[in-house]
């Protein structure tokens, strides 16, 4: 029995008689702050959202060989992510089907079977029950067949080498789940034939905040970058025109079912000035990409890039590449350039997951990502710049992780829990003429629209109608 008990197609009524339609006010675009800490809501999220949505667990290169495994989380459920003998990847609940001990106690390793330390029941990495010790004592009895005693299996699929899982048999395929967003995300993580890899196990650290503080922000909060991250402007990292210049944040946002991606306009760019002073119109796209390869790429990779993408997206690589996004509900990614003091351009690339650990706490998993083809020097540089900007010690994200707990704490008060998260800066869908890409498109400064769509997607899951 997997998720069947949990699939409730009606909107739940909370203890005080309210429903999620009361908490998420579509007319005023407001969300009751209590969603950030209410234990009842948190339980419902684990069942209705995290057990059903596709969430990310690992990169396949973390478990390259048969038997390799890592422990990760689907919501608050710990799973063993293993490379099977046939090369496929499985994810099974790390809960022994006998008496619920933690079957595998190691976060990473290699095993062709897992034997529970408590009473000795043994399982294959794909979850198949192999048997219990002392057969003549019939420890696992005869009431349940061995087939019924296997570990609970998640559905597993990969995109860009990242391993995703869901416990919902009714969920669409991962490809359909990501849908039109793949058109854009391919431009961040599917640029080369050999694809991306990660530099090892992710950073993991604890934030005493609700997971949605990070998730609603990564759904497209452009405004916060101008204020919370103002030190970037003060250091003249965002603006090339001095510290007082307000960045135009030119670009375009796209959303779909709560997923988000932001494309940055390089022509009015505040990050790179490598192309400054050049007449871009005189150069063809491939020439421009060779002159200034996309962040995290070398000139050597451009032929591959040009072969993999049609002209419309090649044009976007040169003019308006996607650089940040989130796959609903809790999988963020950045693929950004970083201007180095010597005038060159480095990059920071990361995948991250906001893994819930209770109503008032989440764990941030942060992987550093590079092209598999990246030469050592580029790999080292991106390792440094990703750690310097995002993750545990990154000087951008430290300001976020200090702020998210404040929102969560605010939601605990008798008055505070009835305050609102507001998304009333409305842009409305604005698709430029001839825009080649799919999804809901917001040209320019996207305001709050894509963040609001995060909440609309959330509402669908919480009211039992995600698909």
């Amino acid at each position: 029995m997997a998720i069947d008990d949990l699939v409730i197609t009606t909107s739940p009524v909370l203890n005080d008689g309210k429903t999620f339609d009361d908490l998420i006010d579509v007319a005023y675009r407001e969300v009751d702050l209590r969603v950030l800490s209410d234990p009842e809501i948190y339980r419902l999220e684990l069942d209705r959202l995290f057990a059903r949505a596709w969430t990310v667990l690992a990169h396949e290169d973390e478990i390259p060989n048969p038997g390799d495994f890592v422990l990760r989380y689907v919501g608050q459920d710990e799973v063993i992510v293993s490379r099977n003998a046939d090369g496929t990847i499985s994810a099974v609940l790390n809960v022994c089907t006998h008496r619920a001990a933690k079957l595998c106690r190691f976060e990473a390793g290699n095993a062709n079977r897992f034997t529970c330390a408590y009473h000795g029941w043994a399982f294959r990495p794909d979850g198949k029950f192999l048997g219990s010790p002392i057969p003549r004592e019939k420890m696992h009895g005869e009431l349940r067949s061995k087939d019924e005693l296997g570990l609970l299996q998640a559905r597993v699929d990969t995109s860009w080498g990242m391993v995703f899982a869901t416990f919902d048999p009714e969920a669409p395929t991962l490809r359909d789940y990501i849908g039109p967003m793949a058109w854009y995300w391919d431009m961040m993580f599917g640029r080369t034939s050999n694809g991306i890899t990660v530099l090892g196990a992710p950073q993991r650290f604890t934030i005493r905040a609700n997971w949605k503080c990070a998730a609603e922000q990564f759904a497209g909060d452009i405004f916060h970058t101008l204020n919370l991250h103002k030190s970037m402007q003060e250091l003249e990292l965002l603006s090339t025109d001095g510290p007082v210049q307000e960045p135009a944040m030119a670009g375009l946002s796209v959303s779909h079912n709560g997923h988000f991606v932001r494309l940055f306009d390089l022509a009015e760019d505040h990050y790179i000035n490598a192309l400054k002073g050049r007449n871009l119109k005189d150069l063809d796209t491939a020439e421009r990409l060779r002159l200034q390869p996309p962040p995290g790429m070398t000139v050597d990779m451009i032929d591959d890039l040009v072969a993999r993408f049609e002209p419309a997206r090649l044009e976007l690589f040169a003019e308006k590449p996607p650089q940040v996004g989130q796959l609903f509900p809790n999988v963020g990614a950045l693929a950004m350039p970083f201007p180095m003091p010597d005038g060159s351009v480095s990059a920071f690339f990361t995948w991250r997951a906001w893994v819930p650990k209770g109503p008032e706490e989440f764990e941030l998993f942060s992987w550093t990502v590079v092209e598999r083809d990246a030469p050592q020097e580029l790999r080292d540089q991106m390792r440094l710049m990703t750690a310097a900007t995002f993750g545990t010690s990154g000087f951008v994200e430290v300001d976020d992780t200090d702020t998210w707990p404040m929102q969560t704490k605010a939601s605990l008060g008798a008055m505070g829990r009835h305050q609102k998260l507001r998304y009333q800066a409305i842009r409305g869908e604005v698709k430029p003429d001839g825009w080649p890409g799919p999804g809901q498109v917001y040209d320019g400064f996207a305001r709050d629209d894509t963040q609001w769509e995060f909440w609309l997607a959330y509402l669908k899951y919480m009211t039992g109608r995600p698909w």
Partner: protein
Amino acid sequence: MTAIDPTTQTDLGRRVRRHEPLYGEIVEHLEDEVQLLDDNDLMGWYQLLAEDVVYRAPVVVTRAKGERSPYETEMAHFDENAMTIFLKVMRMTQTQSAWAENPASRTRRIVSNVRVFATDVADEHRVESSILLLRSRYDESAYDLLSGRRVDRLRRVDGGFKLAERTIYFDQATLGVQNLAVYL
């Protein structure tokens, strides 16, 4: 860039004994260094770093006993050189909106179990120390706590010392803190 694993390091150089003057000098240097950090004097602290400093804290993965090192070779919580540290020090000291440390945390770093070893380089010593960081933010009564073993390469320069390399081996696989906006 191979992370030294303090749990497997066996080819240590000559131990500098506690009664030797050099040992006392090095301990005093470590004490002065943490005082600068506790006092939030980041510019002063930056002066104690060598230009080629490597400052890292590898990611920790819980593995079976006797298996490979729990410390990742590439992934790290801190992964810094003089440029990235300078950038952060500038942000913390020269801007008004480095919110992760504005208001500043109150911090206390406890350094102990100092062991000093000679290295192949005459002017450099391997200095190991245990560190406990207590960090208090806002009016919260709960501390951010971090403990670990530091393995430094300390270089004698003009009568003083400069930090050429520091690797912090944290004890937690999942750090129990929201960020590392402070150094240790």
